[in-house]
């Protein structure tokens, strides 16, 4: 139980990452591959946030000067994730536009038919 309490964030984030990778490998529909990419992105962001977590920590904002600096969580991964979320949205939009082009050109979103793979 102690193990679960300590590592629940890692377990959750890597669960999301593995779900995303598995969807991207096993599914053949392009939209589902993009959904897998998005889940993978969420898992990576959650992992980065949980690396910087302090037990019983507060947000790194001095809304009053009397707030103690000892309990604040690490601000650096939060800043990195802030930028990573926006880049994730931009990449998602680019992937969806490629999907639109693929559908107009081939008439299908099935990657197996587009690339003519056997499996």
């Amino acid at each position: 139980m102690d193990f679960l309490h300590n590592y629940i964030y890692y377990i959750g984030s890597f669960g999301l990452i593995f779900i995303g990778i598995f969807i991207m490998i096993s599914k053949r529909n392009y939209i589902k591959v993009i959904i897998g990419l998005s889940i993978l992105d969420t898992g990576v962001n959650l992992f980065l946030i949980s690396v910087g977590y302090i037990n019983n920590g507060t947000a790194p904002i001095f809304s009053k000067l009397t707030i103690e600096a000892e309990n604040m969580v690490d601000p650096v991964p939060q800043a990195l994730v802030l930028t990573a979320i926006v880049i994730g949205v931009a990449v998602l939009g680019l992937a969806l536009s490629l999907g639109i082009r693929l559908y107009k050109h081939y008439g299908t979103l099935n990657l197996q038919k587009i690339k003519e793979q056997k499996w």
Partner: protein
Amino acid sequence: MRKIIGIILLIVIAWGIIISLQGIPFGVLRTEVADHYINKGIEETGAANIVTSVVVNYRSLDTLGEVTILFLAAIGLGAVLATIIRKEDRETVKASLILSTGCKFLFPFILLFGAYIFIHGHLTPGGGFQGGAIIASAFLLIYLGCHREKRINETGIIISESLGGLIFVVIGLIGLLTGTHYFLNNFMPKGEFNTLLSAGIIPIIYIAIGFKVGAELSKIIELLMEES
């Protein structure tokens, strides 16, 4: 076959991650650079929100690169979708009066909320990227609810995006000329702590980022809604 290969690959990756994570304790330690940011952040940048001071002051060169990536993604999306022939004569159902009036009523308030988020980025949780995303959501609401009666002004998007990028770079270059001579140096007076007019260049840069991100995300939404 693909599923079996995927499961084997995942087991290999998970094994490596479990081995490498065993050495890292959870929720105990902060890095030294984080200690520096938290303890010295107020006197060095003047911003109450330490995350904002990291994003816009300590690592603002990263933020400049990241804004550039967003810009390139918007350009790439436009280039990919540019050659598609538009279908104008699609059968659509007109939105009801209540829905379209409600969207038009909510639109300025959502814009105001986005502006509040990115102006107060150095005091409260939020900032330019979040405020820009909220502004883009206002345009998405107009597209979904008002059935293309209103379109986004193209020149307005281009002007606000270019001005946002220009202000960011020009303020960085002014910082190169003054004070301690490094790019994006916080050269303006820090002001009184925890008030709106504090923290030097941070609010100005976040306002510029808010306009830029809002324009780019609205452009992405507009391209995806118009072409499909």
